[in-house]
C-alpha cells in the first residue's frame, strides 16, 4: 500500500497552508475551492489565483450548493488554458467530474483533482435556515470524524464511497491528523514538486474506512428496501412524484444532466392544444403540467448510469420529493446491470458507448419466452 504524507495543523489550516504553498512555488496557478457568500448562509465555488485571497476560502463546507464538477465544466469545456489548476472537492463531486470527462464536458489536462474523507453534507434548506447552528454542528462532525450523522443528507447517510476515490490526491483524516495520499502520476508529480517524502503508514486509516464503508453498505441496502417501494411500478412512481410541479430543478442542478436543452423542455415534449384535447378526451381529463412521470423516468433512463448520488436534486426540489434517494436506488440497479460504478474509474467506458457482442443475454431469453407464450395464446 502507498504511504502518506503528514501535514501539520488541524484540517482547515493544513489544507489551506498546503494550497498556499502550491501557489507560492508554482505547482499550481489557481485553486478551485468554496468560499462563503456575503450573506454568510451559503458558499460559492471560487477559482483563486491570488494567494492572498486564499485565506477567505473554506476547503470543506457543510453543504453542496453546486456540484463542483459543474463549476469545473464551465472553466474547462471550451478551449485550452495555460494555467495549472488544483480542484478540491467531495468524493461524489470527483465521481461526477470523471463522468463528465467521459461525456466530453470536462477536460482534465491541466487539472489536478483533490478529494478528502467526507462526513457528508447537510441539506441545503436546513443550513440556510440556521447557518450558524448548522455550521457549528458540521464543524463537530468534521473534527470528530463522525461519518454517520443523521443530520446529513439522506443520500450521504447511505454513501459508502465517501473516502478515497478517482482523485489524483486525497486528504485522509486520521485521529485529527491530515495525511495526503497520492493516487496517480499527476499526484506523484505534485508530491515530487512539493518535495514531500511519503512515510506515513495508512493501514489503520484504511481499516477504519473499510469498516465504516461496510456499515454504510448495510445501511444502504436497508434504505433501498424502503425506497424500492417508492420507485418501482407506475403507480408507486405516480404517488412518489404526485406533488412534482415540473420545474425541472432536479435536472438543472444535476451534474450529469449536461444537455443544454433537455428533451423534456423542448418543443417536442410540449404537444399543441389539439393533442392535449385529444389526450384529455381519451381519459376524461389530464393533469397539467403534463408528463411528469415521463420526465422523471426519462431522466432515469438518460442519466442514471452516471448518477453519483450527490443529492443535489433533493436539495433543489421545491416540494421535498426524495428525488435523490429514488435516483440513487434506480442508479444502483442500472449500474449493476452493466457492472459499472459511475465515476469510480476514469478508464471504464460508459456502458452506452461500448459495444459488446454478448450482452444482456437474459433479455433474449425473455423475448423468446414471450414469443412462445404468445404462440400458445394464439
Amino acid at each position, binding site marked *: 500500500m502507498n504511504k502518506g504524507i503528514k501535514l501539520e495543523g488541524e484540517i482547515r489550516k493544513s489544507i489551506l497552508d498546503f494550497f498556499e504553498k502550491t501557489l507560492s512555488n508554482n505547482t499550481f496557478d489557481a485553486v478551485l475551492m468554496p468560499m462563503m457568500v456575503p450573506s454568510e448562509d451559503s458558499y460559492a465555488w471560487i477559482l483563486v489565483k491570488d494567494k492572498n485571497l486564499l485565506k477567505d476560502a473554506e476547503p470543506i463546507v457543510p453543504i453542496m450548493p453546486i456540484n463542483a464538477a459543474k463549476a469545473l465544466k464551465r472553466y474547462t469545456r471550451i478551449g485550452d488554458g495555460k494555467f495549472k489548476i488544483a480542484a478540491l472537492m467531495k468524493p461524489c463531486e470527483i465521481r461526477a467530474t470523471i463522468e463528465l470527462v467521459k461525456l466530453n464536458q470536462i477536460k482534465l489536462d491541466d487539472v489536478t483533482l483533490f478529494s478528502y474523507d467526507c462526513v457528508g453534507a447537510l441539506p441545503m434548506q436546513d443550513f440556510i435556515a440556521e447557518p450558524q447552528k448548522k455550521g457549528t454542528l458540521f464543524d463537530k462532525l468534521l473534527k470528530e470524524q463522525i461519518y454517520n450523522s443523521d443530520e446529513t443528507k439522506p443520500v450521504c447517510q447511505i454513501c459508502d464511497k465517501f473516502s478515497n476515490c478517482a482523485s489524483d490526491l486525497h486528504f485522509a483524516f486520521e485521529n485529527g491528523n491530515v495525511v495526503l495520499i497520492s493516487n496517480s502520476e499527476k499526484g506523484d508529480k505534485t508530491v515530487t514538486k512539493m518535495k514531500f517524502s511519503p512515510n506515513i503508514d495508512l493501514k489503520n486509516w484504511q481499516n477504519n474506512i473499510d469498516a465504516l464503508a461496510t456499515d454504510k453498505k448495510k445501511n444502504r441496502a436497508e434504505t433501498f428496501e424502503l425506497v424500492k417501494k417508492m420507485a418501482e411500478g407506475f403507480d408507486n412512481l405516480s404517488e412518489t412524484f404526485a406533488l412534482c*410541479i415540473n420545474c425541472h430543478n432536479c435536472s*438543472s442542478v444535476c451534474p450529469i444532466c449536461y444537455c443544454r436543452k433537455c428533451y423534456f423542455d423542448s418543443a417536442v415534449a410540449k404537444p399543441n392544444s389539439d393533442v392535449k384535447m385529444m389526450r384529455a*378526451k381519451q*381519459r376524461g381529463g389530464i393533469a397539467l403540467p403534463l408528463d411528469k412521470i415521463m420526465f422523471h423516468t426519462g431522466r432515469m433512463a438518460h442519466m442514471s448510469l452516471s448518477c453519483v448520488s450527490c443529492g443535489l436534486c433533493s436539495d433543489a426540489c421545491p416540494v421535498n420529493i426524495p428525488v435523490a434517494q429514488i435516483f440513487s436506488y434506480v442508479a444502483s440497479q442500472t449500474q449493476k446491470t452493466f457492472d459499472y460504478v459511475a465515476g469510480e474509474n476514469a478508464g471504464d467506458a460508459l456502458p452506452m458507448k461500448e459495444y459488446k457482442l454478448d450482452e444482456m443475454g437474459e433479455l433474449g431469453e425473455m423475448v423468446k419466452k414471450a414469443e412462445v407464450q404468445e404462440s400458445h395464446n394464439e
Partner: protein
Amino acid sequence: MSKLLKIENNFQDTIKDFLKNLLENKKIDGVFSFRKNTSNYGLITDVKELENIAPLYPLMPANAGQLLGRFTPMKEVIAVVIHPCEFRAFIELAKREQGSLDNFLLITHTCGGVYPLKVNVKNEINEKQYWASVEKGEIPQNIRPTCEACEHIAPQNADILISTIGEKNDVTKLYLNTKKGIKFAKYYNDNLVKKSFEKENLKPLLEKKNIAKEKLFSAITDTGLDGLIDIFGKCVGCHGCNAVCPICYCTLCDFDSFNYDYNTPILEKELEQKGALRLPPDTLFFQLGRLSHMSFSCVGCGQCSDVCPANIPVASVFKKVGEKTAEMFSFIPGKDVKEPIPVMIFKEEEFPELGE
C-alpha cells in the same frame, strides 16, 4: 355595464355546478381547474371528473398563465378558473403572441392569496382559517409574501369575476364583465341584474395590503450592486425561477445559450485581472438580465421564490423592481390585453431626462 348573477349556494359548489351544466349541455368542451386530490391542474372533458375540481383552492403548483399559453390556439371552448395573477400572466403572454384568449371562458375571483408550496408539502393548509380570513377581509396567515402585498386582487377584465372577499360563503356572486361572460352565464341561469363589482368593498383589505407591501419592499433595502450581490450571492444558478416564471417564455433563455459559454482563455483573463473567479460565472448577470427582460411584466405571482433552492426572496425583489419599471411607463401588467407592453411601442418623446 357589467351584470351580476347571484346564486344561493357556496362558492365551490356554485362554480362546480355552473361548469357541470355548461359541459353537460355542450356549451363548453372542457374545463381547466385546480384539482385538490392530485394537487395539480386538470384539463377535464368528462363531467364526472369535475367532481374532483377545487377551483378556489389556495395553492398554485404552476402559474396557470404559463400552462394556458402552452395550449393555444385552442379550437374548442374551454372554461378556465384561475387566480388573478395567473389571468394577468396569460394576458401578458397574449400580448407577446405566446397565447390567445380566443375560445377561453376566463373565470377568476377576488383572491385572498395562495400558500407557499412548502406549506402544502407539510400539509399545513388550513382551509377553514383561510376562508374565515377572506370573509373578514383580512390577509390570511402564512400565505406567500407577494400575495400579502398584492393589490391586483380583482381583475375587472376577466369574463367572470367571482366575489369572495368580504362575502359569506353561502351566496355566490358572479360578476359578468364581458359579452362572453354574459352569454355563458345565461346558458346556466338568466336571472341577471345590472350591477358592477364594487371595488370600494376591497378598500379596507387593500389598505392592509399596502402596509404589507411597504414592509416587504423595505426588507429589500439595497437594490444597488452591493445589495443585489448580498441577495443573490447564494444563487446556485439552477434558473428554476426562470423555468417557472410565466413571463419568461423563451424556449432557450439567453443565459442558457452559447452566448455565455466563455472559453478557457477568456475566463483565464478574468481570473488574472481579478485574482479570483466565481464558477459558474454570471450569477448576478443572469438576475439583472431577467430583471430587465421581464420585470415590467412581472405579475408578482411568487412562483420564483417558491422554487428557489437557496431561499432567495426572488419574487419580492422582482415585484419591487418590476413595479418601479412599470411605473415609469404608467403600465400595469395584465390589466388590458389591448395595452401594448412598453418596450414594444415607439414614442418619439420618452425619457427626456435621460438625454439631459
